[in-house]
């Protein structure tokens, strides 16, 4: 349940969860599979991501 501590006063709880990455602005669903209907395989790092706030 406990992952790395983000800050000395905070203790991290909870499991892996869908999150929008602060550095890339990419949103990721953990363990999301490649869409079955895709003929051309999508690189894993793209297949599990969406981006709500893309860079211009």
């Amino acid at each position, binding site marked *: 349940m406990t992952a790395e501590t983000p800050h000395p006063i905070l203790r991290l709880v909870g499991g892996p*969860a869908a999150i929008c990455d602060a550095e890339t602005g990419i949103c990721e669903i953990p363990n999301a599979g490649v869409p079955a209907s895709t003929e051309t395989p999508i690189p894993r790092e793209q297949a599990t991501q969406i981006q709500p706030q893309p860079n211009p």
Partner: protein
Amino acid sequence: MSQPNTPTTPTEPFIVEVWSDVGCPFCYMGKNRLAKAISQRPDADRFEVRFRSFELNPAAATQPEPMPVAFARAHPGVTTEQFMQMEGQAKQMAAADGLPYSLDRLSGNTFGIHRVAHYAAEKGVGAEFYSTIQDRFFEGTLNPFDADDLISVATELGLDSDEVRDVVTSERYSDEVTADIDQAREYGVRGVPFAVFGNQLAAQGAQSVEGYAAALAQAFPVREAATR
């Protein structure tokens, strides 16, 4: 939105701070899961959620554009079809929570929206304002980059339309937004949503209702014991 999380007495609310960005789909889902976790408690009225500003893309254009257009420019190797499949995954996740998820959303700079949210917070309706804006955005019934839409929600919550327009068209509350972002950086936030429970526990990402409930159950007694 940026009130410091100061020591409390037992009669004061237990504060859950949530760093969030308006267009972040998992912030939207996490917000509603957290609300459900709180509402399931018999002492739900003891809890208060405060949304803290976060910008996933500070460089986003001020002029909003359709999400697939912005995405294609940022990721030339990904087709629109592939992007829509990814959106479909998020839509399915929202549907599992009973939430609408419009695929016809805009992408743009959210700093100004956060400024208005801080103004609303100062007037005592920060959480209601932010939550309403985000819910309607994902429902597809509101454009958060449109001043009139922001003012409409604010006035629904009892705020003065002229004052809200002044905030929208100025740079007021920029320092408050920046302070929230700075605090997130200090906390080492790597992504949103990022929830802090009573200044002790933190949860990254959109946790399940059960996950949020467990965090509340863990953090609340500690706060209560400390203030007795």
